[in-house]
């Protein structure tokens, strides 16, 4: 068996300098980056008063809060009914908002796609607008729409419809750009115009992708819709925010439970639908 002492590191280094240098430089770089990131984390935590007696007290308090939440309990039958209809309202907000946004986003997605819109300026303008819409949070949109149409679920619907245009427009544009260009070429080569190329060459190909993205968004929007009520844009968030504020924690946890069940149900349904839409096709595509 070889003894460690027999390995002449200096000689090896002389013969294969790149092994030593390369490794060392890379490791040193990585260590440096990691150290910087951790230092930044500690500084940040200090800045936000993490290392403070208050934190410890907060954690104890959090434990108490968690215990107070159990078991989930709506309080009364009337409360349960109220929550149930608020949940229906929440799902409706998400559904309507998502669908409206998708319908409005499709033409914008086409405008932003390289293989449909030739004008570089138009594409740039569309993309920047979509990015701007996207970088403003749904809650901000909700507040703005509340100022316009008043408190209530309608403001929530409009908030989703505007906010999701940004995300959908970008996703749709990417899906359209990823579409195979061969069918379009086939149609253009027969003397068909751009419109026919898009209609028959691109849209049928990307439609299942768009539909499945829409279903994903519907699911995640239902989650978001359950907090819109906290700022007054309808849905179960109103009750949830209220329950937490007045420390009716068992009711709060019951509402959270209802939301979790609703989201899980929608997840199952949308998976089924997605499968029906593209499931059979995925293997051959």
């Amino acid at each position, binding site marked *: 068996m070889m003894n460690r002492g027999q390995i002449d590191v200096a000689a090896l280094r002389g013969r294969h300098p790149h092994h030593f240098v390369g490794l060392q430089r890379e490791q040193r770089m990585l260590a440096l980056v990691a150290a910087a990131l951790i230092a930044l984390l500690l500084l940040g*935590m200090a800045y936000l008063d993490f290392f403070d007696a*208050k934190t410890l007290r907060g954690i104890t308090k959090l434990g108490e809060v968690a215990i107070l939440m159990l078991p989930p309990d709506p309080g009364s039958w009337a409360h349960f009914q109220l929550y149930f209809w608020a949940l229906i309202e929440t799902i*409706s907000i998400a559904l309507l908002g998502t669908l409206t946004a998708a319908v409005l986003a499709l033409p914008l997605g086409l405008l932003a796609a390289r293989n449909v819109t030739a004008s570089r300026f138009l594409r740039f303008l569309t993309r920047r607008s979509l*990015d*701007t819409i996207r970088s403003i949070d749904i809650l901000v949109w909700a507040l703005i729409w509340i100022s316009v149409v008043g408190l*209530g679920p309608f403001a929530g619907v409009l908030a989703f419809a505007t906010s999701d245009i940004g995300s959908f427009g970008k996703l749709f544009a990417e899906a359209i750009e990823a579409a195979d260009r061969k069918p379009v070429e086939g149609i253009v080569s027969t003397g068909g115009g751009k419109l026919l190329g898009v209609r028959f060459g691109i849209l049928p190909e990307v439609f299942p992708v768009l539909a499945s993205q829409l279903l994903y968004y519907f699911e995640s929007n239902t989650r978001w819709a*359950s907090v819109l009520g906290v700022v007054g844009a309808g849905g179960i968030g109103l009750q949830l925010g209220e329950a937490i504020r007045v420390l009716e924690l068992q009711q709060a946890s019951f509402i*959270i439970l209802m939301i979790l069940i609703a989201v899980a149900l929608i997840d199952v349904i949308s998976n089924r639908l997605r499968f029906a839409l593209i499931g059979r096709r995925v293997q051959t595509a």
Partner: protein
Amino acid sequence: MSSPIVQLPEAQLRPLLAGYNATVRSRRWHTLLIFVAVVVAMGLSSIAAEVSLPTFVDKIGNFTGYIGRLFHLDSGRGVWTDPVEWYWGLGRWLRLLGETLVMAYVGTALGVIGAFFLSFLAATNVTPNRWLSVVVRRFCEFCRTVPGLVFALMFVIAFGLGPMAGVLAVAIHTLGTLVKLFSEVVENIDPKPVEGVSSTGAAWHVAMRFGALPQVLSGFVSYTLLRFEINVRESAVLGFVGAGGIGMDLFEAIRKFYYSDVSAILVMIVITVALIDSATSLIRHRLLGLMDGHR
């Protein structure tokens, strides 16, 4: 030159046409059915969500008016005419924006550290214990499904108003999402290097360190950076429920109709988000290039 189409005799054509029409018709019925289902669902939802087109038509003017007012100072002049007046609170807003970024960073970092360890426990192919994997997965599903804002509301009760509640909300939501994504990355690795290291008699954590980690690192980094972008956006609104950051001032400005303040803060957020997005995508490409280059 004659037309290359030799028209089929009617007797031969008719059954072909009938067959084609029948196929197409059944497909069209199918499409129509889906369409009707969607329309009905939308109709029912619009009743539940109190959608009212008259209100919309009536108030849409308010929306454009609102957007217009956002860009006018109290004096009625455009905001661009007097940037100093527009950004009268620049110092305070910059500090709050900085706080928002720190919240996003600390929240992301804490979430990533937790997700890093949990994902190896959750991934079905490398987990040391199947039951542990199920427990971790369920827990993370919970963290993912409950909206961050709800966590923030709870944490505000425990920790009081301020960024601490926001950071923890971001961290816990990040943990939930990233464990799912990370464990998917781990599940897609090539098992041979792990087996290779394990076969030398190495312990589980050693096998993970040298067998699995090199394969998953670039995926982890990619998802982390994407998550950071999302967290910056989210941190900016956590202040709506008192959980720190620039959201507090934004919420107040919107609620109290300080129009030019709203636009000033929004413009700052949009620019910051755009800068962060381009920076992270730059870092992502650099890092991935670096890692692939040295493999």
